[in-house]
């Protein structure tokens, strides 16, 4: 996988979500992603950025246009220094939430994107990486 462009955004408050979503839309439009795939990626991004704000008071997001086997995609990396997730497989289950939400955020985001990776160390923080390809496959 080759990185074509790369920039970062700091998320500290709820309103930062709006320019972040717009930036994701810009990048996915730039590589010619269809509207449905754009919507899926932005919705997944919206879930992940909410988790970051809710559980870790924000964090840093890296936004990249990447290329693999001649196909372009958008890769987003969410890094926070929050409490971390004790049991990741439990957190990935539909309907599980330690907050008062529906528990669709992580599993839903995973369903919406092509590649999903989550790493977490309790007491250190959580890193989630998602990649969505131009043709959505």
């Amino acid at each position, binding site marked *: 996988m080759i990185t074509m462009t790369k920039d970062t955004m700091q998320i500290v408050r709820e309103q930062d979500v709006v320019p972040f979503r717009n930036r994701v839309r810009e990048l996915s439009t730039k590589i010619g992603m269809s509207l449905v795939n754009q919507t899926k990626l932005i*919705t997944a991004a919206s879930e992940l950025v*909410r988790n970051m704000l809710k559980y870790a008071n924000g964090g840093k997001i890296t936004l990249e246009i990447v290329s693999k086997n001649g196909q372009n995609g958008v890769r987003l990396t969410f890094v926070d220094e929050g409490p971390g997730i004790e049991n990741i497989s439990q957190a990935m289950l539909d309907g599980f939430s330690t907050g008062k939400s*529906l528990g*669709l*955020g992580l599993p*839903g985001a995973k369903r919406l994107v092509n590649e999903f990776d989550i790493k977490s160390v309790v007491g250190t923080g959580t890193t989630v990486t998602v990649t969505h390809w131009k043709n959505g496959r």
Partner: protein
Amino acid sequence: MDRIPILKMGPFLLVTIQVDLYDRLALNLENDLISMVSKTGARGVLIDISAVNIVDSFMGRILGNIASMSRIMDAETVVVGMQPAVAITLVELGLTLQGVHTALNVEKGMDLLYDRTDLLTTQEDEDNGEDPDDYND
């Protein structure tokens, strides 16, 4: 801007969401709508989301909350104008908006509200002084 305007149209309340939603804005809308229903005695709430590009699990939950709260306050809720890409994404996310009435556009949404609240039939009853049930039997 941290409030979405609510219009009163006869017995109904009308909301058109024209801006990108973030969580606080959606929560304010939920509160404002429920207090408006109580203050005006509205029988229906119509929410137009045709300009909304993203509905994630939080906003989906808010729509569901508005519908359930309104129902308790004797008002029906219809969500209209959902973009196809948003509908596809919502279902894949795992959110089916159960209990929320939907319609394709504002016009159909208004028809549905009149239907659900029996407001038109009540008016007709007063006009001809007969019970519509008589025709059916």
